[in-house]
């Protein structure tokens, strides 16, 4: 039931809208997550957007992974 993949908000009309992930679109309700605008990424559960993805935070996590990977790569080469 949990879709862990963030979906991009395409359109919003009152408390409903369309989100997209991997080329597939879904209609969802924004009743549980007001203050969303097109271009935001959201987590969807049972037809409702339940939380917004913090894109800067996601980018920061990825940067940290890269550092860890590089550190391990170096350790191996030494």
């Amino acid at each position, binding site marked *: 039931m*949990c879709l862990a993949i*963030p979906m991009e908000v395409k359109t919003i009309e009152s408390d409903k809208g369309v989100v997209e992930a*991997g080329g597939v679109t879904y209609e969802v309700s924004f009743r549980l*997550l007001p203050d969303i605008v097109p271009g935001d990424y959201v987590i969807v559960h049972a037809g409702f957007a339940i939380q917004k993805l913090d894109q800067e935070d996601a980018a920061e996590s990825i940067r940290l*992974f890269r550092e860890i990977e590089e550190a391990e790569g170096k350790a191996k080469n030494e």
Partner: protein
Amino acid sequence: MIRYMEEFRSAAGSRALAADIRSLMPKQELAFMEICGGHTLTALKYGLAKLLPEGLSLKSGPGCPVCVTPQRYIDTALALTARPGIVVATFGDMLRVPGTDGSLLEAKARGADIRICLSPLEAVAFAQANPEREVVFLGIGFETTAPTAAAAVIEAEERGLRNFSLLTALKTMPAAMRALLESPTVRIDGFICPGHVTAVAGGRIYEPLADEFHVPCVVSGFEPTDMLRSILMLLRQVREKRGEVENEYTRVVGREGNPAARGVMERVFVPADAVWRGLGNIPGSGLELKVDYTRFDADRRFPVELPPPREYPGCRCGDVMRGTIDPPACPLFARTCRPDNPLGACMVSAEGACGIHYSYRDA
């Protein structure tokens, strides 16, 4: 964004994190419980157990909505399908759960009107389009799903519907975690807390547990690197003798959760006692409709008489969800109990530990 998902699944990233985990592993054995079935799936799918050092085990917990739903509830839903005029609407993974006498799928094959919904709002729309039918939605799940069920009730109210109701078995997670911590037979050195329950309810719901039981809690995302990072954070807490709530899934989760969703949930539901498969009755661990909304309560509107519920003899779902055994330790696992012939709830759902272990048993 697709690339972003790949980064969180990077094998090199996983190996690097696993190396850090190995370097921090203490001498004593440790067992971390992943509450959520989504985490069990990630762990098995990406073979995380093989990356972890010896002595560090992951146990499944009571976080699969279908699995914790007690037998009596399934039996009630089955009894409702037999009443003329009633349409039972449900998430698909409830269909094959064996009740005391058959499953909803078998009832459907016999002609019962059972509709599969991806969202409770579909059930509301169906009720509106079919005013001569009584639509009962099977409301199961945790803090993630409870606001969606609440929103459906509000939607039905706004549309003036009198033929929509909810059969609730909604549950809240912290009380079940407390019951596990208080159980003398269950050993838990840290919790990998469910990401999407926490996305709604907020990281603070675990703070009383961490304080009282001094148990490390880390809220985790669902990608393999998320889980490894969470395990690393738990290990650090163990080494530093901390028992705190930390958050790995910061890109989605905050301490306060989603106030709008919580508000909708609190408008419609109040805490109540609830029976969990495998854990029994846990005070205050469920949600029931508030007095103002009892006209949407299927239990009140359509009371049913039931014989005592019975689970399949030998099914050890309860032990699996308490983390006291791994699914392959059940004598029925993969022999008589398989996804095409499930004998217990844990074999049915995509989030059930037995079903997940079965899918990845050779991986």
